[in-house]
């Protein structure tokens, strides 16, 4: 009887080790999702200098920084700004974010000085 009970205790000890993993998946999902990163990139794209073109070096800096800090590939492409009929400057910026688990491609309409 002692042998049988000890076998069951061994089996339940294996189960107790599994208990530690409960909650891991949900917490990973909440913590590892790159919410802040994507918001940072959007904020940055919204505050680009108006004359920014692909040759200004900012784009390359952003790419290197994102790769170093977040392990993510970040790229953007800003069109030339144009005026709306009300006289506001606006331009379209397409941005790309990819960090292996999340891919985001979007086109933003950003206010710019006309």
């Amino acid at each position, binding site marked *: 009887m002692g042998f049988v009970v000890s076998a069951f205790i061994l089996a339940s000890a294996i189960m107790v080790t599994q208990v530690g993993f409960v909650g891991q998946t949900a917490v990973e*999902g909440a913590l590892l999702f790159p919410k802040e990163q994507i918001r940072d990139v959007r904020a940055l794209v919204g505050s680009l200098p108006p004359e920014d073109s692909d040759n200004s070096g900012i784009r390359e800096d952003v790419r290197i920084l994102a790769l170093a800090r977040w392990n993510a590939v970040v790229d953007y492409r800003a069109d030339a700004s144009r005026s709306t009929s009300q006289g506001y400057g606006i331009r379209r910026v397409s941005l790309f974010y990819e960090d292996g688990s999340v891919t985001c*491609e979007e086109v933003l309409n950003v206010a710019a000085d006309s």
Partner: protein
Amino acid sequence: MLQQIRDKESAVSSMLEYTIITAFMMVLFLTVTVASDEVFLTGPSEILRSQEYLDVANSVSVRVVDLAVLAPEEGMIECRFDLPGRVGVRPYSELIVPDTEENSIRIEVSDGEITSRAYLSGIGGSVFVPEMMSGPGIISISYPEESDD
């Protein structure tokens, strides 16, 4: 003569003692054997599995909410994530069901025996999620939903 018999009765009493104790121990042994499966294995295993399914359902729900919060107006966002292949030794399935009665979206994770449910918090009424079913492994969810055409 009588005295001689009284001297030899210890043989009978020790055999009786042996029989009674053995019977008692066997009853105990059988009780423990039958009950121990429920007490030591099935009960904890069911609790563990239902918690783990709830965990998986919560992780799907967290990702859907994050994706909906970040969803761009123009463009697309896609999230790929890995769910544990098995819980214990059993495979399982996830089912995302729009729940019209609760005005929410329900995520059910089940292995056919135990089902755990989680609801999308907050965004259930405002985001349309088509009904879908999936299994363990790498799951990809995207917004807007990729169309086949």
